[in-house]
């Protein structure tokens, strides 16, 4: 692994280097929260370590909320030949990188999702370490330190950043920075101590006491538990939890026709398994008419399904569902219900 040293005073120059490789996207203030936005001005380019989560997760850069996936006329269907710009995602944290690792696996195993792949090929991931807040629990989902999935990663060792270079593309960026004198390949001798302290600080920063131990089996054992009904009674089916969750992938398509023409587009947009007609067939048979059934499906996917397929739960501990759900149904409250149940 190649590492270099970076000092915060060079932040502006870093922006300069990154901008030469593509559009720079980073968390920016939006009302009381943050959202990933395109940074045009180096003044808005900041190391946001205390910004734990944006409103919408990183997936919006890979599969926008709504975009044309096909264009057609009465004689044929084809992919729109749209120019995809290179984007640099700066300031993504460990949980976000873990989520993208999950999406990479999901969208490129068995069948390759071309819409995802073409944007993913153009995405450069520059991670930054973070300080957990009261809702974060990536320590419990084992996503607090990522081993892969970034091109470059900045770990804050207090007086300087230790910069991990994960890919050859990342190395291109670092080398240009080295030429401009903002990265230093000479790492101070005390780096191991400093790095060990950094890991310790990370480990100690969590105060969310959510307990996910055994939740996969508990989900199985709680299939008929009464609490699903209770949760179903208060869920609004608003789908916000699925929109903000970085590992939710469901979508739908709809055809839009251009006015007075025989041309149109097939629009792909984010769907939610919490919406009422998610599992409705053409014959009007709804496999999940009850809200409780749909909630159960969501938590199956977060806590159980991915363990079977990819060996880890698909929850990365970002805490978005905790801060988002208007009626407090989230991974934490569900985990608590699972424990109280003791169906054994």
């Amino acid at each position, binding site marked *: 692994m190649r590492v270099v040293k970076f000092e915060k005073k060079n932040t502006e120059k870093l922006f300069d280097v990154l901008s030469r490789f593509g559009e720079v996207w980073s968390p920016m203030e939006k009302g009381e929260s943050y959202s990933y936005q395109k940074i045009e001005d180096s003044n808005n380019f900041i190391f946001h370590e205390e910004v734990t989560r944006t409103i919408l997760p990183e997936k919006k850069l890979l599969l926008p909320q709504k975009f044309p*996936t*096909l264009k*057609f*006329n*009465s*004689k*044929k*269907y*084809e*992919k729109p030949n749209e120019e995809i710009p290179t984007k640099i995602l700066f300031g993504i944290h460990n949980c976000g990188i873990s989520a993208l690792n999950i999406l990479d696996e*999901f*969208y490129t195993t*068995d*069948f*390759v*999702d*071309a*819409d995802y*792949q073409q944007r993913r090929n153009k995405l450069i991931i520059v991670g930054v370490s973070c300080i957990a807040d009261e809702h974060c629990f990536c320590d419990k989902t084992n996503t607090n330190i990522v081993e892969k999935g970034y091109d470059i990663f900045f770990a804050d060792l207090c007086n300087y950043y230790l910069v991990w270079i994960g890919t050859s593309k990342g190395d291109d960026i670092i080398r240009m920075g080295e030429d401009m004198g903002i990265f230093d390949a000479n790492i101070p001798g005390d780096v191991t101590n400093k790095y060990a302290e950094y890991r310790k600080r990370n480990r100690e920063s969590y105060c969310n006491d959510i307990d996910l131990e055994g939740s*996969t*089996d508990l989900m*199985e054992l709680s*299939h008929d538990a009464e609490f699903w009904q209770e949760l179903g009674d208060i869920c609004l089916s608003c789908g916000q939890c699925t929109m903000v969750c970085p590992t939710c*992938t*469901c*979508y*739908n*398509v*709809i*055809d839009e*026709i251009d006015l007075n023409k*025989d041309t*149109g587009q*097939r629009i792909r947009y984010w*769907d939610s*398994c919490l919406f009422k007609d*998610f*599992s*409705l*067939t*053409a*014959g*009007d*048979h709804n*496999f999940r008419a009850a809200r409780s059934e749909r909630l159960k*499906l969501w938590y*199956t*996917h977060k806590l*159980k*399904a*991915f*363990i*079977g*397929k990819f060996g880890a739960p698909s929850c990365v501990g970002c805490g978005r569902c905790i801060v988002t759900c208007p009626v407090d149904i989230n991974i934490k409250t569900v985990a608590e219900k699972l424990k109280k149940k003791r169906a054994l």
Partner: protein
Amino acid sequence: MRNNQYEYSQHHIPEQPHNHESQVPIMMRIISKKDLSPDVRFFQTVPTTDYRYENLNYKPGQFMSLSISGSGEAPFSITSSPTRKGIIEFAIRKVGKFTEKLFTLKDGDLLGLRGPFGNGFDVEKFLGKDIIIIAGGLGAAPLRSLLLYILDNKEQFGRLIYLYGSRNVEEILYKGDFFELLSSDQIELYISVDENNKGFEDKIHRGRVTELFSKIGKINPDNTVAAICGPPIMYKFVVQELLKLNMNKNDIFLSLERRMKCGVGKCGHCIIDYVYTCVNGPVFTYWDVLRMQDLI
């Protein structure tokens, strides 16, 4: 506990149909249609020119998605057999906006097509075995693909038993073909209707499809496979009959309906528990049904 999900159906995931272009429909032309029942229409389609057709192969039990320019897309099981190349057939019931539009199309009109999708029946595993096919209502459409496949390769299979239950005589699909097969020595065919069988007493039993089991005599449970497709309510009862015959749970194959959309395991609409029915289904074994929640 963690399920060994790769065990299900012992079916492999099909090869990617048109690699990364599996989301782009190719164009088919309707060459003929006929009504099979008051609300089910049979469509024959052939590919127009496109370099991707060489790959257009499929297995009985798989499905495809049809698009009508500007009216969207919907999934349909394939009713033709891969043994009869060139023409792809669908038997489609008019149930919603998309199918209403489809029923207005004329011969020569174009349709977009994606697929095939899903695991289909693993016909390789059926080789040398006795086969029992049980169809209910529109289930006869996907099962026709399997039926024709077996009839076209009959020397490679043992007994072929076919039980077909319909609500009434009008709704029996492929009625003419089935009546002809009644006198064939290739197949032991029994048909039942829930309602009136007046005028067809010699051909059609009046009663439930499960009552037809009394007609098939002894079977060899170690060398028999069963394939079922029909309305959701039917599976439980039919499976009970098969278990009474001592059939192995892994030799009972059920083709299940779900809301399919993308066909490639990405959009999530068809998901059951941790399984994407569009990729790992729609065909499951009875053992899958027992160990996975909510399958039927």
